[in-house]
């Protein structure tokens, strides 16, 4: 269970929040000139990286505000939280460890709880 530092309310338990998936996905307008591929990618395709991920959260059982968050999906460490209208922090401002809790290989998975 994460602790999420709502930019409007402060740190709260994850159970007060809902996850909104990948952040900074630009919504094309609905006009017919938008190609099938571009629109399809907006509607259906989301990144799911192991490592640093820009995502959205909403404080649904609190202030109901949406905000953005940078989280390392391999460790669940929250690296940054920023408001919707704030600039997207650069990827190279974070150390991308891509290490998993159990020290698994970068690719694939396995249960290695033993230190190598």
């Amino acid at each position: 269970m994460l602790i999420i530092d709502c930019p409007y309310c402060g740190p709260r338990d994850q159970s007060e929040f809902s996850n909104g998936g990948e952040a900074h996905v630009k919504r094309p307008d609905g006009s017919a000139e938008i190609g099938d591929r571009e629109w399809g990618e907006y509607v259906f395709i989301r990144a799911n990286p192991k490592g640093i991920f820009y995502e959205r959260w909403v404080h649904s059982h609190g202030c109901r505000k949406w905000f953005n968050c940078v989280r390392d999906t391999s460790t669940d460490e929250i690296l940054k939280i920023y408001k919707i209208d704030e600039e997207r922090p650069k990827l190279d401002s974070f150390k991308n460890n891509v290490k998993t809790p159990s020290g698994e290989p970068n690719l694939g998975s396995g249960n290695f709880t033993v230190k190598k």
Partner: protein
Amino acid sequence: MSELNLTDNKFIQFHQKIGFKFDGVKYYGYKGDTIASALLRNNIKLIGRSFKYHRPRGFYTCGIEEPNALVQIISEYSEPNTRATIKKIYEGMEIESQNRWPSLETDIGSINNIFSPVFPAGFYYKTFMGPHKNFWKKIYEPIIRKAAGLGKPPKEFKAVSTHLYHNVDITIIGGGLNGLIAAKSLIDTKYSVLLIDFDDQLGGILNNSNKVQSVNNQTPMDWISETVKEIENSKNIKLLKNTLVTTYNYINHLIAVEDKFVGSRPLKDKVNSTLHKIRTDQVILCNGHIERFLSFQNNDLPGIMLCSSFEKYMCRYGVIPSKETVVFSNNSNSESLVFSLIKKGFKPKAYIDSRSGENIEPDLFDLIRKNDIPLYTNSQIKEAYGNKKLQKILVEDSSGGVNEIKTDFLCLSGGINPDVHLFTQSKGLLDWDEKDLTYKPAQAFQPTITLGSASGQFDFNAINKEINEKLDIFGIKPVQIKLKLNTSHKFKIEKLWEVLPQKQTIWSKSFIDLQNDVTTKDIRQAISEGFDRIEHLKRYTTNSMGTDQGKISSINALGIVSDLLDKKVNEVGTTIYRPPYAPLSFAAIAGRNSYEYYDPERKSPLHNWHITNGAVFEDVGQWKRPWYFPLSKDETMNDAVQRESKNVRENAGVLDGSTLGKIEIKGKDALAFMNLIYTNSFSKMKPGTSRYALMLGEDGMVKDDGIICKISDEHFIATTTTGGAATVLGCMEEYAQTEWPNLNVYMNSITEQYATFNISGPKTRNIIEKVFPEVNFSNEAFPFMTFQFHEYEGTPIRILRASFTGEMGYEIYVPSNQALKIWEKIINFGKEFGLKPYGTETMHLLRAEKGYIIVGQDTDGSITPLDLGLDWMIGKSKKDFLGKRSLIRSDTVRKDRKQLVGILPTNKNEKLEEGQHIILDKEIKTPTPMLGHITSCYQSPTLGHNFALAVIKNGQSLIGTKAFASTPELKTIEVEIVEPIFYDKENTKLAS
């Protein structure tokens, strides 16, 4: 009597006798006894039958690691799988042994032991494959379920549990020697500290063994009570006893469960257990170690116990399970037991050690020699014998000779493991220690410190150094604890996992997992079959998959596997210990969210009126809605619905629509926002008019519908479906904040602020004119799909002319606190016109006759507005709205999409059924191509027969043709595919 001295101490009150029943027989114990210590006091050593083979089993341990002694507590709603080694007795407690029939002594299932060749490793996967697919369900499964397994589920159980939250700087888990020193050093620091111990007595190893003679020149008991007093009096440390930390999650989030009724019968209406949810900056694990057992033939017999457990029964409970025990060890942990036994005058019958004489601790060696205890060095126990209890053992000595020793008891020690369960739950990494032969914490993943034996630090002389180094980050004053020991301060061990079997008989088994009845032979077989990865092996053999997670045996299994594969243990790896540490009851997890509080119930302001008037309720989301209003107990739902529907069509009916979602939208850009959210265009609408509107997902599928009232370009009120209210509001908020933050718009739920009455039927106008005489309800003054604000006796109300039944009708919105008054007035004034309340079922029937859809019933998230024939609702001139572009996706413009149609049986007496398929062929062949399915189906009192709505492939072009509907009996009914409207196709009634 197996008792030592009977003077009261802090653990046991010997003056307080307690009576309890085990398998119907009354026994006595003392206040402070566990079930196990009390039964051992009464010389009861057989406690249960094993999981698979129904072998007799006794108490193997004296703590939470117990694999065998699981009992059913009859006096607590028959609570199953309770560990007899930790559950304390109370007056009148009733206990039953488990997994035996007809009785513990004579158990018919033990025949499984003789048939054990049919229960090899992976027997679930192999044995029950044939001969016919029904064999599993009909024959094998019921037999296995009866024969294998643990306790029976509890009966008439009503959990009472609560949750408590903590937010502290430091949490110390375990109040043994290290935990107490750590806590003491943190007294009066700036940190808030939580000290948690599973026991009701702090002190751990100091209470349970004679290892330590004195602490700071005090007796261990004096030191403990002084230290605990200091901790209890401190302002910054909170102490939780009887509390087990079961779970160590991410971000130092701990779950612990506290037993509120230790040693007494849980009261029915009091909280029985508290689930503590702890957030902490730093965790200090001081949860000690667990002793391992050893594998040899029949190492499961009652009368075999771990060394440290035997000593704990003596020191802690003043009970000696046997006065003539044999000790078998490969490490220094047995020294303390031998010391305690001799001190009490019950010297062991023999001491067997797999190590050579020079590798045995010198103090221990001298002690054994001085007391003339028969000593077998370089020796191993080959086999144990006995019928329901240990009777003799065979010892192979250093010269290879086999010696028989008659004994009723045997104490084992196969080494010790740091209790790494919580550490690995926290994702910390382990490392194999080749010297101490165990996995030890190596690298913490979270802010976790391990101290003492929990960190694999088994040397008593290194305690000060470790604590001072590891707690230095808190700026504590260095501690200087002086320990005097009765035994060696260091831990030494020599490798021994398993004594190889001498001979193979069906009865003789060498167990590696006592709870799941896994033998070392199963491990060998699994490896020979190719299951040589430890995670595969675990699942194939079920080794360490019991509720004890193999606490005393899983490392032994790794040792055996590493030898068999000729690999280092570190290369074999270890399986993951998963939360919870020990079984955690659902009742504790549920807390207050159970029974009537499981999910909130939402009630309309008229709820009590509905009850008084005999409504039968239906759950719609969290709402309780009147389903129908039977005239008497004898009237069936079908009869009531036919009557209510007929009455709406002939006279008038009124529905409590208060549960419909209502959202108020305001702001300079409210119009632009609404145009983006809904498919419809609201730009040309005049203030005071309303529109039926659809909301789509970005994939183009219908997500919700409702009526939008336009008060002005800057002010709208939207209704939503009852179940969709929260989602629609959430969606509006999301887009307002994330996609169009430039729009000036605000929205709020007003669902609970307003009650809604839907009146409809040909006599509606007569009634409503009587209720609101000052309002002009003529078609000219109040046309269809318009609304007006009025006052009723000082209460502001809104009346909307709309209908969901197909009859002319009005929706009246009134503040919730005035709802009952106005509702009763309508009911009273309507009596002379035949007005009757109706429920949701009638509403569903009437709207279906009119072809109005219900989102979520006639649609399922894969239906576009075009599929519903609602093209007219799409604002084609609008540049954008949610899902617009998706309406011209290749998938949504497909010709063979499922589309909404009406279905009528050709033979009007036939009954259709919701969910049944529409097919083209009269005969059902497999496979039968399916056109689609029936989404709504009712018996219409107006039409006099069944009718249905369905979504079928290419439906709109099939209108006018025939097809077949399937039945649950796999027959077919011939049907006509028609337009999805069955009543008043010209809409004359709505505008009448």
